């Protein structure tokens, strides 16, 4: 599996292109489609098969319009029926999608937004705004923050320590590191032992 990470300067968001060994590719969170993303698709992969969205916020989905103009046959996967005006295949917690050699598991982790999904491909977790290096996604209320913390704790921090985290913003991380250094989780009273 090849993972191409690109920092979108427009949105300061990470756009990930993931390809199997045969070049079948997906894009996770097309925040902004620029020349470099198109170069990755055209030069480093054979065919773009699908787009996966971790949630519907424009910061991570704005590039969808540009992408769909160029690649009309691409399927969109998210937690909703439509996203940015495009039809989407709705995913629920635990759904598994196979695209070429990529096996993508959808994990529902509500809190930052109610439709937030984390995608797991092997030992890679694409967490969008749910879990970032050292912090968790912003929430609109204390209740949503509690929901997010609980969801992260039960669904992500129970995964193997070595799982790599590819967040929607900021640098990469590992589950092990978040258990020790995630300030928001530490402040919420969650300790390594609890997880």
């Amino acid at each position, binding site marked *: 599996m090849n993972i191409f990470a690109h920092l979108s300067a427009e949105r300061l968001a990470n756009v990930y292109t993931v390809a199997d060994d045969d070049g079948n590719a997906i894009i996770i969170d097309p925040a902004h489609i620029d020349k*470099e993303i198109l170069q990755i698709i055209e030069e480093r992969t054979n065919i773009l098969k699908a787009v996966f969205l971790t949630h519907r916020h424009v910061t991570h989905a704005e590039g969808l319009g540009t992408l769909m103009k160029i690649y009309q046959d691409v399927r969109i996967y998210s937690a909703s029926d439509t996203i940015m005006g495009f039809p989407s295949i709705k995913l629920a917690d635990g759904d598994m999608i196979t695209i070429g050699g990529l096996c993508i598991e959808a994990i529902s982790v509500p809190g930052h937004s109610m439709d937030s999904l984390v995608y797991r491909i092997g030992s890679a977790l694409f967490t969008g705004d749910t879990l970032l290096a050292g912090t968790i996604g912003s929430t609109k209320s204390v209740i949503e923050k509690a929901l997010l913390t609980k969801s992260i704790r039960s669904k992500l921090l129970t995964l193997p320590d070595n799982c790599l985290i590819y967040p929607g913003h900021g640098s990469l991380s590992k589950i092990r590191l978040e258990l020790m250094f995630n300030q928001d989780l530490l402040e919420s009273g969650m300790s390594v032992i609890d997880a």
Partner: protein
Amino acid sequence: MLAQSLIDTKRSQGHDIIMFPFKHCIVPGCPAFTYKETDYCYHHSPDKAEILSEVTELLEKGGSIRDISLVNAEIRGIRTGKALDIIASNFSFTVFEDCVFENARIIASFFDYCIFSRCRFISCDIRYSVFAGSMFASSSITDSTVIHNNFMGIEAADSDFSSNDFYFSSFSLSKMQDTSLEDCNLKRTNFRSCITKNVSFRYSNPEEAFFRKDEGYTI
């Protein structure tokens, strides 16, 4: 370097190739990734000494090191060769002592929980990499591009991190003592809950970094 970063915040970040094998050691209960496409992690490999010697040679020779996982090793006294690329590799829990990385390009690699003792990173290009939980003792990273990296929870003592571009890197929950971050670009650098003692930010721009929890950071 600093001026360029400050002026051109929309500069191209380039695209980085991350090709991590994600294959686990076949020893029951061992969670570690395998060294290359073998069946065993470095720790359980029957030819540990050979692997270490191979990696050391690669580091010293230069060229490209890609997709390897060398966990809990000890690397001492190496000076990297010209044009060394370390891409999508995992060196977690490794001890580096008296090592010099010069003009190295380190992309999407993991150096978490490492110990760097008397090591020097000079004129390196380090991106999308993780040094969280590591210890830097009498070590330095200087004249380097160090953008979008994870330094959470590091402990740095008697170290020099001067003349670097730390754009969008995170030092949250780290402890730094007798360490210099002079003449650095700290735009969007995260120092939340960082404990500093005798740390100098002279000629840097800490006003553009994040120090408090209530300051918006990424979202």
